[in-house]
């Protein structure tokens, strides 16, 4: 396995006295895609929010390149090289497409190199075409591309995605997963939270099944053909 970029060690998150994530440990290596699947309420989104510092971790640690980032505010974690594509896309619908992308620059550390906006436009040409339009006028699939593009202009080392295929038409879902394949080629490390188990298992280097805030099972790409195993993992 490549050297781990992102590590969770015994992560615990609680809402009041209700545990949402219980002792979760996992690693994402350089250039890997790691999937995180599981039923609603399994603690997947909470895990991502805890990595970003948007909810406090009760115990355990979050490490980036071996250095703890636990307890830092979200904007500092973003600027340390972790970008989140949040659930529901969370684009700024009153802003233009280009303004949304420029907001992504807020999390960028490097100040040199290729124009990051152009890189996003190369990946998603439709964003370039509509760059002067209001983002709210885009279709759902295009908005998802914008959300991913906005995360990419920060040129992150780690990309966290929270259910990027949620609410999209089948064709748009395929486009999202195709984009993730292309992003992997750029050596971006990806932690992908998804409901579409088959798609995810097929794409990811490893896919962890989360239930009740705990890691239940780990699947490899070879398991993609074995639907029964995936279904059994959900029901376990």
């Amino acid at each position, binding site marked *: 396995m490549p050297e781990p970029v992102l590590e969770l060690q015994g992560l615990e998150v609680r809402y009041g006295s209700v545990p949402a994530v219980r002792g979760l440990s996992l690693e994402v290596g350089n250039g890997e895609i790691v999937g995180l699947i599981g039923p609603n309420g399994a603690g997947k989104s909470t895990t991502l929010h805890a990595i*970003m510092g*948007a909810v406090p971790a009760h115990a355990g640690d979050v490490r980036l390149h071996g250095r703890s980032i636990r307890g830092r*505010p*979200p*904007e500092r974690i*973003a*600027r340390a090289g972790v*970008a*989140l594509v*949040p659930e529901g896309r*969370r684009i*700024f*619908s*009153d*802003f233009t497409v280009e*303004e949304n992308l*420029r*907001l*992504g*620059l*807020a*999390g*960028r550390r490097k100040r040199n190199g290729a124009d990051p906006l152009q890189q996003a436009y190369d990946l998603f040409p439709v964003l370039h075409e509509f760059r002067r339009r*209001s983002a*709210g*006028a885009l279709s759902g699939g295009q908005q998802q591309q914008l959300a991913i593009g*906005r995360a990419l202009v*920060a040129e992150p080392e780690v990309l966290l995605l929270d259910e990027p295929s949620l609410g999209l038409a089948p064709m748009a879902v395929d486009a999202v997963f195709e984009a993730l394949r292309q992003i992997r080629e750029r050596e971006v490390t990806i932690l992908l939270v998804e409901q579409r188990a088959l798609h995810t298992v097929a794409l990811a280097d490893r896919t962890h099944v989360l239930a009740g805030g705990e890691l239940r099972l780990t699947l490899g790409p070879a398991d993609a053909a074995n639907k029964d195993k995936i279904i059994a993992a959900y029901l376990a």
Partner: protein
Amino acid sequence: MIVAALDFQTVSDAVATGAVYALMAVGIGLVFGVLRLVNFSYGQLIMAGAYTLAFTSGWPVWASVSTCFAVVIAISLAMELTVFRPLRGQSPAVMLVTTFAIAFLLQAVALIVDLRNDFIGEVATSISALNEAITVGGVEIRKVTIVAIGAAIVALVLLALLLTRTTIGLHTRAAAADFRTARLLGVRVNRVIMFTVVLSGVLAAAVAVILTVQVPLVSPDFALHDTIIVLVGVVVGGLDRLWTATLGGFAIGFASGMINGALPTDNTVYLPSVLFGIVILVLLLRPAGLFSWGRRASAERV
């Protein structure tokens, strides 16, 4: 009954009041947008600026005015650091009542400072030359009326450019639209908040300059009533967007200017009731704000 008062002087004065209230609305709306805090003590920033102008009346105008800006910005920043920041995330009621307390605190301090010479009120005279009237096209108009309207327009245009053309402006608009997501994207929210607080201080100082020309007598409750009216105006206009809040401020300023210009008769004494009756009616019909016409895709949050 309002028609009777439709002479040019009254209308231009009402427009000037509307312009000043629009500036105050922007100052209040900016802070609300980013912090979700209705700052009741905004009027005391203006009051502090007005006292600064009064105490520096003997100075050259530029020195007096820049001291006013410096003092108001400093108090504005101090408010953010000592009051707003610890209150972040608290319920609106707690934040509002705390700013009441700050308003009363600043007023009480002003009263003690003011009473050193044993009578209440100080006079700001350094730029009262603007109060003279000039004749434009056969009608008399006070210079300050023109200055107020001009200054408001310039300030609003500059602000719009700042918010739409600069990175910090983009970040500010993003924090106002969705604070949480802006943070997740790496927007340094404390910097944005400081920027917002300074901007609202700048606007308060500008309002202090204009108001002291119109009303040179400064007392501890200076701008208190104006602030209350503007708070009503911004909510009626729609506090969720800056431009609707600004329009709300202008509208209520214009309306109260017209009411004040109306000759007192048996009926006009009830004009405030009419105005506030309209306020209630508007809120019942459009609780999100008079000017919030749905979520139009092209609407820029300026």
